[in-house]
């Protein structure tokens, strides 16, 4: 890791780590009477860890100039491991909160173990920890391969990957201590948000700098999506988190928005987080690993174009469908609903483009669980985008809103689409990264596939049932013209579904553990076999290597 940094980059790494440690000290002192102080200590330790890491290898020889004729994959490798680590942690917390809903006493009377604190650990753990790390790792890989250019330097990818994980740690530890902005999927407080902006800008610059130096005339579709993901998430994150801290010594802050404007900003953010984090980013993954694994050309370039622009344009309007029948003016709801309906077309066009790409490779889908993961992901992408557009229709939403149907919908997308495409892509990527012929155990991939599929189906069906029963019970009137059921009646009716949901989630978690084990064993297997880089898997050099990395 450190050995691949030039001396100048090692110095830069020490400087940045020292600055981070200083920030930690300031936070710890200014926030000594507040939870901000605890986070200051975490930041300080992180900075000191960075310094220690660099110093331990500081005097190793510089990497040879020859490195420039290889892609820089070390950050991708670490990103894969971090992603799987977060997957197991995040899904474990998911199963825990699912169990809490069925057996509410599992909090052990501890504040940190209450549902309100554990739930964001689950959502942030899986979305940002598992999903985000997988996106960063795969984006670095795809970017280099489809540009035929090495990353612009050796330091900034590490800054992005590790800085991003610092954000994840601050987020999760903050939730357990009770720190939250109470904005769904944007819970971390102001200082963590500012840090993420810095990390994200560097991430964007890596992308731009590499694309600038690409040796291909066109930018591949996957990169359009990764770019949209990085750019729009930056915009969403900054706007939704505009807030004024109580003081620089306090973790607490107040949002710049209030009332219905706050709600609208939050769901503009929330829905576009689904669009640009959980959809665009993972479509980038799909567009590289699926055709690569299937060995088939993309079904239609033209379809890719209208899908991309359809998705990016239409999603921006759809957020208000989270606020149907609320204080939000009706015209905003109308726009959210109608754009959500049109959005179905580019969404299905993307799913269709992916599935039609498999024409001529369906025998591989049958035999290869890795490709089957990606195929099922495309199917679930189609299913959940249909469901999403359907639920955005006001009349449907009046039944589905505030019920478990929403939870089922999210998990059809999160388990069926996001997690499946990630696992499929990682199973394809890991052997390439560690330069082995295949994963440690293809059988375990098969086991994981069926665990994941069974878990998803059990989960989603349980929540469909539970949600629709809830929605119907809440709107059923008796002969007297008053409500036939109380809230507790609906809660009792949900109990069996909450138990099934926990079982479904548990199966999915076991699958993730199997994946982590399989990847770990593949890495161990790779250590015992030395192998060189395949000749084809290299960036294109033009003249001197120095031209590749200006400034070195």
């Amino acid at each position, binding site marked *: 890791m450190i050995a691949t940094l030039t001396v100048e980059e090692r110095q830069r790494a020490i400087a940045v780590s020292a600055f981070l440690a200083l920030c930690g000290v300031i936070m710890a002192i200014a926030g000594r009477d507040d939870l901000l102080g605890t986070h200051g200590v975490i930041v300080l330790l992180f900075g000191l860890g960075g310094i220690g890491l660099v110093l331990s290898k500081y005097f190793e020889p510089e990497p040879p100039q020859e490195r420039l004729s290889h892609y820089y994959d070390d950050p991708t490798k670490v990103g894969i491991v971090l992603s799987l680590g977060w997957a197991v942690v995040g899904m474990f917390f998911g199963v825990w909160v699912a169990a809490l809903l069925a057996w509410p006493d599992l909090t052990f009377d501890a504040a940190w173990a209450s549902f309100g604190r554990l739930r964001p650990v689950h959502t942030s753990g899986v979305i940002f920890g598992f999903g985000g790390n997988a996106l960063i790792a795969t984006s670095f890989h795809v970017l280099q*391969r489809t540009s035929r250019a090495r990353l612009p330097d050796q330091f900034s990818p590490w800054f992005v990957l590790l800085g991003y994980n610092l954000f994840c740690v601050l987020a999760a530890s903050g939730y357990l201590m009770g720190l939250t902005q109470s904005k769904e999927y944007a819970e971390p407080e102001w200082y963590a948000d500012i840090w993420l902006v810095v990390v994200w800008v560097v991430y964007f610059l890596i992308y731009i700098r590499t694309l600038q130096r690409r040796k291909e005339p066109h930018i591949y579709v996957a990169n359009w999506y990764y770019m949209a993901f990085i750019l729009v998430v930056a915009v969403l994150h900054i706007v939704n988190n505009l807030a004024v801290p109580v003081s620089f010594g306090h973790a607490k802050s107040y949002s710049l928005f209030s009332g219905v404007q706050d709600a609208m900003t939050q769901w503009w953010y929330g829905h576009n987080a689904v669009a640009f984090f959980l959809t665009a980013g993972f479509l980038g993954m799909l567009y590289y690993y699926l055709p690569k694994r299937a060995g088939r*050309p993309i079904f239609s370039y033209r379809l890719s174009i209208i899908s991309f622009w359809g998705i990016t344009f239409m999603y921006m309007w759809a957020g208000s469908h989270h606020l149907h*029948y609320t204080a939000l*003016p009706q015209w905003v709801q109308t726009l959210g609903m*109608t754009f959500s309906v049109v959005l179905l077309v580019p969404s299905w066009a993307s799913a269709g483009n992916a599935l039609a790409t498999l024409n001529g490779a369906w025998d591989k889908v049958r035999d290869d669980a890795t490709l089957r993961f990606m195929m099922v992901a495309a199917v679930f992408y189609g299913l959940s985008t249909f469901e999403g557009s359907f639920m955005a229709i006001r009349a449907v939403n009046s039944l589905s809103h505030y019920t478990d149907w929403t939870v089922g919908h999210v998990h059809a997308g999160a388990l069926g689409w996001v997690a499946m495409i990630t696992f499929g892509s990682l199973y394809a990527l890991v052997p390439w990264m560690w330069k082995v012929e295949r994963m440690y155990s293809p059988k375990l991939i098969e086991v994981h596939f069926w665990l994941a599929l069974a878990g998803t189906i059990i989960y989603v069906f349980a929540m469909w049932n539970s949600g629709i029963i809830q929605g119907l019970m809440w709107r059923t009137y008796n002969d007297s013209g008053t409500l*036939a059921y*109380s809230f*507790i009646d609906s809660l009792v009716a949900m109990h069996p579904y909450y138990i099934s949901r926990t079982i479904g989630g548990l199966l999915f978690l076991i699958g993730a553990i199997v994946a982590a084990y399989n990847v770990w064993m593949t890495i161990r297997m790779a250590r015992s076999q030395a192998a060189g880089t395949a000749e084809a898997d290299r960036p294109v050099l033009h003249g001197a290597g120095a031209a590749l990395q200006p400034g070195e």
Partner: protein
Amino acid sequence: MADATRDPVTGRMTTGHEWNGIEELDTPIPRVVLFFLATTTLFAVIYWLLMPAWPLGWTYTKGLLGIDQREVVAQQVRDAAAERAAWTARVADASFADIAADPALMRHVRDTGRTLFTDNCAVCHGTEGKGGPGFPNLAAGSWLWGGSPEAIAETIRAGINGTAKDTRTSQMMGFGRDGVLQREQVLAVVAYVRSLSGQKLTEAGQARLAAGKEVFAANCVACHGEDGKGQQDLGAPDLTDAHWIYGGDEQSVFNSVQNGRQGHMPSWEGRLSPTDIKLLALYVGTLAGGAK
């Protein structure tokens, strides 16, 4: 850049682009995609024309149908209330006795009262009104403040040690904690109180009975009455029946005498309509098998 070639599986030409082995076919956009794009867009445009849709500075396009979600809800609420008024008006106007004597009306009371009760009261008193530790059993017929519908309605309206100005107030002192009674006296009165409901006492308890009776007469009768049957105008519980709010075992009764008790029930006036309170009072009466 690779040259465009023909894909043997589909017979389509590629675009000639290639990225690390990935190629793209030049397949035209399928007609069905364009068709659905046109249909959904048409749907959107028609919907915009009919409903409130686009902002225009300080106002917005109101839509040809002239529908406003607030008016729709207000109208639905009015309609539903008018429909229910067929029987709610009678509940509001009639006396408790008249309502209880009308089986058709009591059917509405039971239907609606159950939902009202489970949504508002069951959190403490349980879905069947059987209470729990610290929360009175409403199905037992052992009333703190009276079991007539009028008394129950008043308890619901004003609450007990609640926030209403005229809330019902009641408190049992911490006789042991505040030093009014010595430990031995507390133990004695606990034994005596438990004997009132015919509970089996230990030998030590038996030995304290006489002393306990004296302590009781000197300290407890003001509220609980000489016979220990309580007083409903003070909210003092009957100690002779089998029902206990805080438990009738030796330790629980000891805790009550030692530390005192002050239960709390919110004042529901302003949170529930007078008709809803009336409905609930009648419904709670049915839990105990008829108002007493």
